[in-house]
């Protein structure tokens, strides 16, 4: 039961990410500002803490493949990235003191680094030529602020999802 609920929530959050692409980027004077939400990634990272790192890795592979095949130009970037970042989250969370602020900080830093990782791959392949400073100022930081706001919603969703029973019928 819980796996189904997690799958459905992850699916909705993935489409939430797609939906944001309809409104972003926006122009601020002569500048084009990108706000890239990472609802699905934050959910998968939080799952590794509140539910199970193995389940989190499994969903990272499933949704990484879906995103790569459906909307990716370069296969493997999201699949590999999501699994690697679940691993980083698991490692980082063992080092940091386990409280809400530390966890929020780690998740937000990882969302920022995830986008930077995709940027780095595309830059190596010559698909994007955006300078590093422009990337940080016009994409990295605005996205970080947006994700900080969205983190609360994803955190609540993860908490609710983690409380769903594994089985429909209670064990006797």
């Amino acid at each position, binding site marked *: 039961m819980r796996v189904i609920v997690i799958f459905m929530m992850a*699916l*909705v959050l*993935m*489409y939430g*990410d*797609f*939906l*944001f*692409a*309809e409104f*972003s*980027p926006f122009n601020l004077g002569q500048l084009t500002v*990108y706000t*890239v939400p990472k609802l699905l990634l934050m959910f998968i990272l939080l799952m590794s803490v509140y539910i199970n790192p193995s389940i989190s890795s499994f969903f990272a592979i499933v949704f990484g*493949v*879906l*995103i*790569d*095949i*459906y*909307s*990716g*130009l*370069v*296969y*493997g*970037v*999201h*699949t*590999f990235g999501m*699994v*690697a970042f679940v691993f980083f989250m698991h490692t980082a969370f063992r080092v940091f003191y386990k409280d809400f602020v530390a966890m929020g900080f780690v998740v937000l830093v990882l969302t920022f680094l995830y*986008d930077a990782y*995709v*940027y780095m*791959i*595309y830059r190596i*392949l*010559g*698909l*994007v*030529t*955006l*300078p590093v400073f422009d990337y940080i100022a016009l994409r990295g930081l605005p996205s970080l602020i947006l994700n900080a706001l969205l983190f609360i919603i994803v955190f609540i969703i993860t908490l609710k999802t983690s409380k769903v029973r594994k089985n429909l019928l209670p064990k006797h």
Partner: protein
Amino acid sequence: MNKLLNRNKMLIILFGIIILIVFIGFSMTDRSSTTKAEQFTGDTVAASQSIIGAPVQFVSNIFSNVTGMFGAATENEALRAQLEMMPQMYADIERLEAENEKLRDALDVSAKRKYNTVNSRVISRSQDQWLNNFTIDKGENDGIEEGMAVMTPEGLIGTVKRVNGNSSFVEMITTSVSQNNLSVEIHNGDDTIYGAIDRYDSEKGLLVIDNIQNTATVEAGDPVFTSGLTGDFPEGLNVGEVVQVENDEYGLSQNAFIQLFSDPSEVDVVFVLERDPDSQVD
């Protein structure tokens, strides 16, 4: 034990990186077909997205209808004025087409401009917002194939990269030109200058045609069309207009900077162009 664990982790990471490189290599190759597994995955996600996205689309339509009402009267007047000219324009087009056909028959020249269109709607944009690629709601079942040109009402916007059963993934022209030079022609008065788009300058937001001879005259404002000489693109599709011309770094040739007519960030309805097989250049 700890060392062994670390070694195992290292092996997994190395294996993952190798797989990533293999996948990147696979997706960057110039493939002419989409595998069944890709088609199935793409169609499943597209179908479920249409279901989940329907309520959002409904609300969005209500808002756009309400905001559209404000300028409706002025827009209506402008459209009415344009509409009055339509019968004359249609008559002119029919006359010119008939004349064109007769002249082609006389010269025994095939029409590189012939194509059929498939109307389509954009169902999703790339969620990582890097390359502005998008997915449309028409696929193999509607006659769409890889490599077909995709246009907005304003001009050329991209190429069909992958085709699923009922959806297709479109790569923006701003991304694809870096891999396969698009053959174009610049019209300067009565002169036609042929060239190939070399790259997309993301800082300026312009396409670049390089290696134009110094003797050729290219000026800002000159329109740019596809030439139909290579690939599946028909001849005469609107691409954009020249906004800047400058000499290359050695002064041996000119570079022309092209502003696309279509706006990559505002794509909603597109037309996929199926080129007439008789007109294709081998």
